[in-house]
């Protein structure tokens, strides 16, 4: 055994299912070995729905961020966007896995075939089965739209994760407590860029104003799904103020039906077509 470096030991004999054979390809259950029991008194359907919605928000955002790879304005920003997407993908995997355990039944083992896996949720549901908010699925647009959207979504998700860190479900509470640390960095990254662009050139300011005008009207849907109006508007006002911009008037009411009801724009179906194409071409494939 090569004691000094993990990579060197990759070349040595491996056993069935040994994740060391190729670094970064070990997609086993991210909740491996975590106590899967659901505490008494917790509404399982409600818990599963909460995990699913938060996972869908994260997966769809992660996919949009991955689309920036090779297209970002600078290498550093490309690395940043990919890292943020990776954090969100990690959160999505944990939440899908928890959703599968909770839906699976009292012991989390599920019926025949076991509980649904993260792959079942990510690759084998159509757009109507997804519960992500509309804001997450819109195309990236320009860099200004991407960072303004990220600021709004990170701020809103951070407020939810702060609250969920006290969830009666210990697994969801742990996922939220961990994710909150990551979201604080995402929000900070986005905020710094909104200030830089908003207080930058005439062109970058014009684009940032335009992004705010597109993002703010969609906040009603976010607040209807989870009411973090005060926290999100405080963040947006602080950041817009630092950029010398005025925040457009936020909407008072939410649309009748939207992402959390499975009602989506056509953009989600296109996003999923790309995300799911390989898995659906060969549903039995493993990786």
């Amino acid at each position: 055994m090569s004691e000094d470096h993990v990579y060197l030991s990759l070349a040595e004999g491996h056993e069935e299912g040994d994740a060391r054979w190729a670094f970064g390809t070990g997609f086993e259950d991210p909740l491996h070995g975590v106590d899967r029991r659901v505490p008494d008194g917790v509404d399982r359907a409600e818990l599963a729905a909460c995990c699913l919605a938060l996972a869908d928000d994260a997966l769809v955002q992660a996919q949009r961020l991955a689309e920036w790879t090779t297209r970002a304005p600078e290498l550093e920003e490309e690395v940043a966007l990919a890292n943020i997407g990776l954090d969100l993908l990690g959160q999505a995997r944990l939440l899908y896995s928890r959703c599968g355990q909770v839906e699976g039944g009292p012991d989390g083992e599920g019926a025949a075939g076991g509980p649904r896996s993260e792959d079942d949720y990510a690759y084998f549901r159509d757009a109507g089965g997804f519960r992500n908010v509309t804001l997450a699925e819109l195309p990236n647009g320009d860099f200004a739209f991407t960072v303004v959207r990220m600021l709004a979504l990170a701020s809103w998700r951070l407020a939810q994760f702060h609250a969920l860190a006290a969830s009666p479900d210990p697994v969801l509470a742990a996922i939220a407590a961990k994710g909150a640390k990551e979201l604080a960095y995402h929000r900070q990254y986005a905020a710094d860029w909104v200030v830089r662009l908003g207080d930058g050139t005439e062109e970058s300011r014009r684009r940032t104003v335009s992004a705010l005008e597109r993002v703010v009207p969609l906040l009603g849907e976010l607040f209807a799904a989870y009411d973090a109006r005060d926290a999100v508007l405080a963040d947006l006002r602080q950041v817009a103020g630092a950029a010398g911009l005025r925040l457009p008037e936020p909407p008072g009411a939410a649309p009748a039906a939207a992402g959390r009801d499975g009602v989506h724009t056509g953009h989600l179906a296109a996003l999923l077509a790309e995300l799911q194409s390989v898995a659906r071409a060969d549903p039995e494939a493993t990786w």
Partner: protein
Amino acid sequence: MVTAATTATTATTATAETRARRIAEGVPDPELPMLTLADLGVLREVSVGPDGTVLAALTPTYSGCPAMAEMRAEVAARLRAAGFARVEVRTVLDPPWTTDWITAEGRRKLAEHGIAAPAPAPAERPGGGPVPLVLSATRRAVPCPRCGGTDTEETSRFGATSCKALWRCRACREPFEYVKEI
């Protein structure tokens, strides 16, 4: 009643546990190979059950840490190679990993490799309160791990791995990585 036999078993378990812990602690981190899993603070528990099964518990640094499966497999492989037939490596999520768990030895090794160690993690809930913007006074200066100078600047919030940011030193002109406190 404690018999001679149970005392002997307990002693054997204790010895086995010490040996198993030493092996698991020595596994290098795949992303920061100058650190062991113990240095990084991700190895949360090593114990040996009455039937000789080794139980090791690992916690991810970030939710999307792509190295978790490799760490788990490496810990199990090294323990099996050392003669422990039954090994179980579990994931623990609670409490969440914090850079405060990087040991003094780990910090020394980071500095030796030109990576700035994290400051103490914020005690309050992460991201509570206003957004710490780039020009705000709440941002800390990261001292250069090469020359010790404090005239440094961030070049990118995110680096080659989730846990690091890119910085550069205006005094010695060297770029360096910095492990972000979480």
